[in-house]
């Protein structure tokens, strides 16, 4: 059974074409800027919105067959747009073995599958999913090993997984969240660029910080460390983008 929080139809920022995104619950990292706090833990999250007075509980266990029907509803749209299904989270790869039956069925139905991951899991998890997955949207948060440790990750493992996935012929799309005060200084940016260039990366997606998740923190009764953090200005974003552009082709994903 898969532990999911939400299924979102008509996703347009999670890979090529029109996609349906399935959000999986549970995460092994604790990034303080996270925009999906409801997916940090495996237990259902209860959100009570003050603005609308509505309460919702996010978190349910579903079987592959149960969810497949819903994912296939939009098959015609996937086919027309070269889209498909994206698994996001949380950390998707924590449920790698539970994902096997579903991704197998999706593949059998001709549906492209992308997996969004921060990649701090043993490569063995990727190996069991690889046969059924079209590609990975792979987060790369920093080139500083200490910073990775602070959020519970492991830079060495991330680099190893990217390298091995590429060696095994899987499409890997590097995505860098741009978090003010964490990885947006020229020095951090430079370091990220060099590290990724070393391992042969040619393209990156940049995901500018936003604080859209803050309502969810409040609805869950949690403090959000980035509540008052302003988004990057157009100017700042342009400067950061310029550095990345000297190394890679770059796309800014809204």
């Amino acid at each position, binding site marked *: 059974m898969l532990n999911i929080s939400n299924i979102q139809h008509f996703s347009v920022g999670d890979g090529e074409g*029109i996609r349906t995104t399935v959000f999986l619950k549970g995460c092994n990292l604790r990034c303080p800027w996270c925009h999906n706090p409801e997916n940090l833990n495996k237990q259902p999250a209860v959100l009570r919105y003050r603005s609308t007075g509505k309460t919702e509980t996010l978190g349910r266990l579903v079987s592959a067959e149960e969810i497949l029907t819903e994912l296939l509803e939009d098959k015609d749209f996937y086919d027309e747009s070269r889209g498909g299904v994206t698994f996001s989270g949380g950390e998707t790869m924590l449920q790698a073995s539970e994902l096997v039956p579903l991704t197998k069925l999706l593949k059998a139905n001709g549906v492209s599958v992308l997996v969004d991951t921060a990649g701090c899991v043993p490569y063995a998890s990727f190996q069991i999913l690889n046969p059924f997955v079209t590609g990975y949207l792979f987060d790369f948060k920093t080139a500083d090993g200490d910073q990775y440790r602070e959020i519970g990750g492991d830079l060495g493992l991330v680099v190893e997984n990217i390298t091995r996935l590429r060696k095994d012929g899987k499409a890997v799309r590097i995505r860098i969240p741009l978090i003010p005060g964490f990885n947006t200084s020229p020095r951090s940016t430079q370091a990220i660029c060099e590290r990724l260039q070393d391992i042969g990366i040619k393209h990156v997606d940049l995901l500018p910080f936003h604080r859209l998740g803050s309502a969810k923190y409040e609805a869950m009764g949690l403090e959000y460390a980035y509540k008052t953090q302003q988004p990057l200005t157009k100017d700042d974003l342009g400067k950061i983008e310029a550095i990345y552009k000297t190394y890679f082709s770059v796309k800014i994903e809204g």
Partner: protein
Amino acid sequence: MKLFESLNNELRQTSGVYAPHYFRYLGYGEDLSADYASLRANGIYSLFTKPNPVILKSEWIAGNQQSLFCEESELVLNYAKNLVDRFSQRGFTTNKDHYAPDYDHILRVGLPGMIDEIEVSMQVHGDDPDKIVTLQAMKKTLCGFSEMIQKYMLQAEALVDSPDFDRNRLHFIADNCRAIINGPPKSFAQALQLMWFCHTAFLMEGRYAMAFGRMDQYLYRFYKTDIDQGILTDEMVIELLENVFIRLQDDIVNICIGGQNQKGECEINPLSRCILRAVRHCNVPGPNLSLRYTQNTPDDFLDECLETIGTGLGYPAIMNDDVNIASLKKYGYAEEDVYNYSMVGCIENFMTGKQPPWSDGRFDTPRFFDYIFNNGISATNQSVGLNLCGLEDITSMSDFMTVFEKQLAFGVDEYMFKFNAKNDFIHQAFFAEPFLSCFCRDCIGRGLDINCGGSIYPSVHGAALMGIGTVCDSLAAIEKLVFADRTTTLSELRDAMNANFEGYGELRQKLLDAPKYGNNDPFVDKYAVWFIDYLGSLFEKKKTRDGGGIYIAAAANVSNICAGKIINATPDGRLRGEPLSDAASPTYGRDTRGATSTINSVSKPDYTKVACGSVVNQKFSPSMFTPEKRKKLMALIKTYFKKGGQELQINATLRETLIDAIEHPEKYQNLVVRVSGFSAFYVTLEKDVQLDILNRTQQE
């Protein structure tokens, strides 16, 4: 300042009183004892020839209504109005306007050629005095029209030495006028000038929503010749078109581009692109651009349409050509005419230049619930339906559907009764339309007025079915709560609705939580299929006064708002006075599962039964209109049409909407913010975060 902008300023400078009735009156006054057709013709002749034309400094294409402002005394104007009003005119339900003239014909044979045709027809029908009167009336108006153009020519020439005017432009206008008085237009500019004079004449007559029809087709040969000979460039074509489009502000002028021919070939051409660009530059609401979309429409063209929509303009509306053609074929029109259809008004499918002007009415379906629940009499307004049985006699969903169908069938009869009464009250010959008849086949050949048998096809009427979403949601809520879960009864539901749910908050919440149309849920979507099938079958049996079809439409314009104001609370949890669902769209804010699910739902009904047309509104944030995201929108549209959808009206969510949503979150429950790996309903966000989003859209 761009040329069309200064033209726009000039058009706003007027003095005196706008008095078309005064000029008509001058014509009537010539012979008040004349027969009706001649009286009308005299009035129109005078309307066209008496006013002094106004040439504007910034125009390349002449023709406006400023000539109809006059300085006569109030007493004379009042007398004139009184007299003219007695000899009143047709209205929207009696075939006055919303018409696509046969522009192709006049551009081919020219104005003198049309007058010749009338003379030939007079010889053919020489033994029929009624036809001679009709033809003479037509001829008089065309001669008046020709004189009006001549006056423009003379005026342009008279101004040549004026220092305020550009000589080149005046010569251009005078030369074009001279050419079209004397023969068929030879250049693109002459053709455009002639059709614009026709449109101006219709406006002077007091008509509204006169469509341009398939402008990219009938003007194309002129365009091609001029471009091939190097006389024109696309930039000049666009400027000429802007000269015309900028004047369409307080009107709904449908302009149709694209479409397929009988061989299935897409007819998008370079002129279609110029029209799209000119509409986009002008950025005024009047030109109602419609794209007849086929699966072989070039992607780059559709992309440019989406880019235009993304500017906030909302045009073009995108129509599925295959579905429209299939729906029109059911009415027995000649194949070539079906493929040459265009739209009038907002979306109404029309046999270009071959049937009398359009009429339509609104059929507000959700009100029929009220009669079932309240013994045939509305609880909130003065309306009455059938009193069929007590609520206790309805013991299953199929019982409920039976009584609902009976109510609707009665409603359709009532609707047709009122429509027929209004039309039969009209003495067709009294309301002769000599000028308009010249632009409808085959009035000249037959010697008959457009509304008295002159048109090739009879008049049709569109019944705009309102509230499909409200009805589907209501039926699903009844089925689920009353007959499946048995958590309420019909009588409790009646009490709750009559109390506008005051004191019934819990029940209302359950009704709101029941399946809603627009989320690809078969439990409720089946009612949408039934809605179109059943109401389509009722209207299919009805006819207009002259034997034409009654089409159905799934459209409402904004009538769903006023209709909702007087309709009692409905079983879907809608409060009394709230708008009905709009057009063919799900109830606003209730399709919360994403655009693909909305489209999966709304493509289920069989729209080949909806010959008038339907409207599905979809709003997307401005970030959906970047080049990359437009590809995804294109895929969405193509899939929708492959599934049998009929029309998509895409709008970019404007800043104003986002601001309004901060103030009125209840209206925007489905407004989604989409970011990679994340989504949220806009209204759940805190105010400062909503402002972040506003700033994002501003940047884009």
